[in-house]
């Protein structure tokens, strides 16, 4: 452990703003890349089910 205490760790030697904003941003980008395809998947499945229902109604 290169920090003496937890508050030291949060302070990042005065660079807290930079370090933590970067990692927050990183988390957002990574999560976004996982959540976006999940939402997309729901949307595609709903779309295709609607199409199948439409085709069934027609025939």
């Amino acid at each position, binding site marked *: *452990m*290169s*920090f003496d205490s937890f508050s030291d*760790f949060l302070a*990042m*030697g*005065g*660079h807290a703003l*930079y*370090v933590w*904003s*970067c*990692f927050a*941003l*990183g988390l957002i*980008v*990574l999560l*976004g*890349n*996982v959540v*976006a*395809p*999940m939402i*997309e*998947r729901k949307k*595609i*499945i709903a779309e*295709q*089910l609607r*199409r*199948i229902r439409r085709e069934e109604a027609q025939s």
Partner: protein
Amino acid sequence: MAGKNWMPRWFYQLASPRWCYQITGKLLPGFVVATLLLITIGTVWGLAFAPQDYQQGNSFRIIYLHVPAAYMAQSIYMTMALAGAIGLIWKMKVADMVAKSCAPIGASLAVLALATGAIWGKPTWGSYWVWDARLTSMLILLFLYLGIIALNSAIESESTAAQSTAVLALVGLVNIPIIKYSVDWWNTLHQPATFKITERPAMPPDMWIPLLILVIGFYCFFAVTLMMRLRNEIIRRERRAGWVRELLMQQRG
């Protein structure tokens, strides 16, 4: 038709969207676990246990995000161009889908690399943006990604869009080393002795091991999100196939 037989069998299996969908479904959980483990370990190690840099202090810890993101942005471009080339040469639908799925992931990581680089620049150089060679190259890489995404969305026919973007990606691939070289050269010409944030001589193992873990973690992460996007793409394009219909009916319950 000539020259087809020397490719291994899995290469042709990959060409089957159905096989691809099934195999990615099996691989996905493993990669999710690996990604979570590697990224958590790497981040905790890098943030809390790696020694601080004698010049930059703790702001140096941004390296653990910046370098993997920048590295991935480049590798994803290679992956995309390679998949595009395979799609062009062997007319493989799955390769087209991989190439299409790569672009948004790569672009988002390029943005991350640029943003972290800019934030890192503030404590290091005193300003958010410096025309540093690496950052400039990354910005141009982002432009290439944006061009590819724009072209892909402008063309209506899916197969034409895939082929056109593959050609563009390959042209970009040839250009990337030239751009990189020219930007480096331009940089030394105009700013002879700038301090390069990520270039340092011997890093102690305590510093570079977490970095290595994170780079591998990011690779796994790329695999996870690529597979998720690829599976979506397969469902959308193969919507008329019988097996997709069955799959959809199962979803309906």
